[in-house]
Each structure stands twice: as C-alpha cells, then as structure tokens.
C-alpha cells in the first residue's frame, strides 16, 4: 500500500492543531478543534485507500488493479455527514450556552410588565422576536470587548449586562 506523504503530513498537522485548540476553555474553539480533528480522521480513512487510481466505475474494460479502493470514500462520506449533524447541534448548544452566560435564565422569560397577561394579549402588544434581537445585539456589542465569553460560565448572571438591559 502506498500513501501520499502530503496527506500524511496534513493529517498530522490537523490532529495536532485540532487537539491543541480543543483544550481551550472557549466552546467555539472546542468546536473548531472538533472540526479539525474530525477532518483529520477523514483524511486518515482516505489514506487507508492506498494510492491514487482510476475512478471506481465498473465499465467492463478497466483492469481491477487500476481502480482506486472505493470503500474508504464511502466511509468518509458517511463520517462527514455525521460530523455535519453534530456540528449543527454543537452550534446550537454554544448559542444556548452563550445566551445563558449573558442573559441568565431570565433571558427566557417575559419582562415584568407583561406578567399576568394571557398569551394572546402579550403577543398582540409586541413581537418577541424583535425584543430578542435587540437584547442579543446589545449583549453582542458588550461582549465584543471581552473574548472567551462563550466559555461555560459558573455564574450565570452578568450584573453589568442586566443593568444595561433594564
């Protein structure tokens, strides 16, 4: 079995960088690390198919020996799809974690002046999506100053942010 040296080096670098980034506290970096390590693994699977060759299409004329091994490519495709799904979930999780770190669980509830109203009354008085957006943008501006805010925080409430909101 022969393998391309470039791919092997690429895989090694991606594993090293990926694991290094994964050790950071910030969740976004963990995600980036996971992407790198996951793709390094995909390259590892790809290396296992051996050297390059003709496309794995059975035409009846090509000799078997010329054809590249298709199975690692199939495995890789499956792994890529799975990684994609997991990445989407991780992104949602990171967003939620950041939301909790910035707004706390009160970020989920309605402002006080709407207490006691029925759902229909509240909905008619404002569009919750707009409010969400405003709050999110406000916090986004504040958090631009401080990196690593999406790290899972022990204290869920940030006093300055709450004051700004009220």
């Amino acid at each position, binding site marked *: *079995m022969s393998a391309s040296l470039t791919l092997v080096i690429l895989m090694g670098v991606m594993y090293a960088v990926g694991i290094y980034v*994964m050790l950071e506290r910030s*969740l976004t970096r*963990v995600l980036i690390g*996971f992407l790198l*390590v*996951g793709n390094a*693994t995909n390259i*590892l*699977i790809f*290396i*296992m198919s051996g050297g390059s060759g003709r496309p794995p299409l059975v035409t009846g004329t090509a000799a078997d020996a010329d054809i590249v091994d298709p*199975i*690692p490519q199939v*495995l890789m495709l*499956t*792994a890529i799809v*799975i990684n994609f*799904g*997991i990445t989407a*979930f*991780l992104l949602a*999780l990171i967003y*939620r*974690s950041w939301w*909790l770190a910035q707004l*706390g*669980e009160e970020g989920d509830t309605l402002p006080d002046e709407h207490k006691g109203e029925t759902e229909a009354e509240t909905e008619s008085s404002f569009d919750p999506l707009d409010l969400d957006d405003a709050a999110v943008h406000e916090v986004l501006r504040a958090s631009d100053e401080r990196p690593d805010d999406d790290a*899972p925080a022990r204290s*869920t409430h940030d006093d300055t942010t709450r004051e700004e909101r009220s």
Partner: protein
Amino acid sequence: MNAIVPLVVMLPLLGAAVALTLGKYPKIQIAVSTLVLATVAVLSIMLLVHVDANGPAVVHVGGWEAPFGIVLVADRLAAIMLVVSSLMLLGVLIFAVGQGIADRDSNPPPVSIFHPTYLVLAAGVFDAFVAGDLFNLYVAFEMLLAASYVLLTLGGTGARIRAGVTYIVVSLMSSIIFVASIALIYGATGTVTIALISERVRDLPPNIQLVLCLALLVGFSVKAALFPLSFWLPDSYPTAPAPVTAVFAGLLTKVGIYAIIRVDTVLFVDVPLQTPLLIVAAVTMVVGILGAVAQADIKRLLSFTLVSHIGYMVFGIAIGSEAATTATIYYVVHHIVVQTALFLVAGLIERVGGSTSLSRLGGLLTAAPVVAVLYFIGALNLGGIPPFSGFLGKVGLFRAGAESGTPLDYVVIAAGAATSLVTLYALARVWNMAFWRRRREVEGYSSSLMASLSENPEDDGRVALKTVSPLMVSATAGLMALTVALTVFAGPLFGLAERAAENVEDPSVYVRAVFPEEVP
C-alpha cells in the same frame, strides 16, 4: 424469521419520524412510541426464541452479500441484549409518560421532541447490538449518542447545558478514536465486516494486532466508563431528567460493554489482554465505589455505583473462560435492570421528598412506603445480598475467577467482595437518612460523617415536592419485579447465558453464520 433483525432498527426509526410529525398531538405521540417499543419487545423475544433454537440469524441488507454489503447478525448474546434493552426502554417510557401526566398542571407542556429522540436512541441501541460490521456499529453509536445529546440537554437550563458540554465533548473524542481505529483496521485487513476481520487479523504481526485492539478498546472504554476514562459520567448523568438518567445509566454504558465483549471474543481473539483488563476491573470497582461513599446526592451516588459495577463485567470479560462469560452475560442483564430501576426510584424520591440530597431528606418510610419498599429491594439487589440476582451474578464471576486461579484473579475477587460491601454501606446510608430517619430529625441533624459528604454542585438547596402519578410507581414496580424475576428464574437464565457464552467463546460460530460456505 430473519426479517425481524432489521425490523428492530427500522421500526423505532419510522416511529420517530411519525412521532415528530405528530408533535402537536401528545397523546397520539405517546401511543405511537409505546406501540413501537412494545412491538420491538415482542419481536426481540421472538427473535431470542428463534436464535436460541436455530443458531444466529443473519441478514445481508439489500441482498448484498458480505463483505460487500452491510450485514446484521443476531446471535444469542445480541438477542438477549435486545430483549432486555427493549423491555427497559418500554418501562422507562411508561415512567416518562406518567411523569408528563403528573406535571401537566404545574409546568409548561411536555416537550414534543422527547418521543422522537427517545425512539432514535432506541434505534441506535438496537442497531449497536445487531451490527455485523464495525462501521455500522459506529453509525449506531452516533445515532444513540446524538439522541442522548438532545435528551441530556432537554429544556436547555444552565445546569443541563454545563453537564451536556462535558458529556458531548468526551463522547465526540471517543467517537473520533473509534473512527480512527476503524480506519487503521481497514488499512490493516481491508475490510470492516466483523466476521472477516476476525479471520484476517490472525495473519497480522502480534504487535500490530495489539495496537489496533487497544485503539478500539480505548474508544469503547470511554463509552463503557472504565477507569480512568469514567470521570465524565457522574458529572453529566445526574442533571438530566429522571427517566433519561435511568435509561442512560442502564443501557448506554452496557452498549460499550457489549462492544468490548465483541472486541475481546470475535475481533481480536489472540491479543493477550487478561492482565491489563483485570487491573482496570479492580481499579474501576474500588475507585468508583469510594466515589459513591463520598456523595450526599442520591443520583450522584448511584452514578458512582454504576461506574464501580462496570468493573465486575470487565472482570468477567478479562477472565475469558466460558463460565466467566456466562456470569458476565447474566451480570450485564441483572445490572441493566436493577440500575435502571434504582434510578427511577431516585426519580420518585426526588418528587415525594422534594430533593435528592441526603441532608434534606427524611421520613420517607411513612410518607411513601411503596417507594421505600422499591428502594429496599433494589438496594439489596445491587449490593449483592442473597438470594437476589446481584448475589448470583457476583458468585458466578468469583467462581470463574477462582477457577482461573492466578494471584491477580484473587486480588480482583477480593476487590469485588469489598466493593459489594461498600456498595451496601453507601446504599444503606441512603436508607437510614432518607427513609428511616424521621422528618423532624432533619432539622439540626449533625454528624461528622454527613458533614464530610459532598453535595451535588448544581444543587440549589430547594425542596420542591411534586405529585407522583400511579403510572410512574407502577413502571418502577414493574422493573423491580423484573429484577426479582431474574432471581426466581435464575436457573433457566443461567442456562441461556451459558449457551450464549458457548457461541461467544467460539468465534468460528459467528464467522460461519456470516459466511456459511467459505470465508473470502
């Protein structure tokens, strides 16, 4: 009859799709998922009877023969696991439905995503048991893990997100190690079909076999929570809703154990793993149970006993004789049932006592006598008091260890006996504090032992009583009855486990089932 094998995976997946579209009609959703899991339970019992009589059932998916297509294999071991896990999933589902009914008045409506995710989890667990090639096993793991990520972070509260992050990052790393080892095994043997790897791996040099085997084992050990790869479990499981914790504790770690059994008995038969596995088994037992002793929170305490008792199963796998495998299979079944049931009891305690912390619980014996009886049976069973199934399983393991008879075996037996006693101590303390102690003694109770216990870091000290619906109690009672049945029918069950162990110990049975004529 072979058609049942793919059905146990397909039905839950189809059920999940149907349940997802029925998100607005919770009652129909409940009906769909209960029906699906009940059907799978019946099908897997039929499959077990069939496989026990006629040998392994093999399905080449889509008519593509192995090693080109995906192959599903159900031998006796897989069928036993299917029966037990489907019964557990059904029992816990009924508990969850009961909890939903009890919560209907107070809380926001139950999340519509629970039932579809739960069914995907079921499909993943079932697929892992029947997977005949390594890559399908990986897909099965990813299915059940992705579902477990969603279930663990259900509701998205701060505590659950924090617990979920630990769990997800650890699981992702173990999955990556697993895929990387599949890639290496493919590079070495040119196939991912388990039966074919089993044949070809013998021709490899021993050190390459060892590396491939260890790479797979590390991946599975994270999932099975073997020491020192078990640190994530007690931090992540207890924060999930009670039924979710119960099903995770009962099934997910055992899927890892099942995969380790396959690695040790079919994939890499010649790799000498006895000594390292024996050491890991002893350390897992002792460290796990010492963790349990230091906990004041019942759910965390149970999570540590879960880690600790994984050690017994690894002990059986490490010895590797037929008697040991028989006892391991029996012990796995016993542990799935009793651990799931105990976590459900913890869920009941949380509702009738308002908390799961021993420092705030008291007087439950008079407040909830049924829960007390259920807990008592489960605790004695897990602690290994005769005549319960925990005792029978441990005796079987110790006897197999004594037959093997190396000094290290006796060390592990001693560790196992000590662990069983300490388990009993930890569980008896829960009994004394939460059930036996009177309600009025809780205030101002002081004891240096209690003061040294560590509370759950996520515990906010609140006491919130909730109603318990009869459905929840009957689901828990049903599972407890099943643990007692494991004792009553121990004879026939041990016979079945013995026949399963015969197959497991002889990899040629597995290989011939997949390749009846000739191994390519």
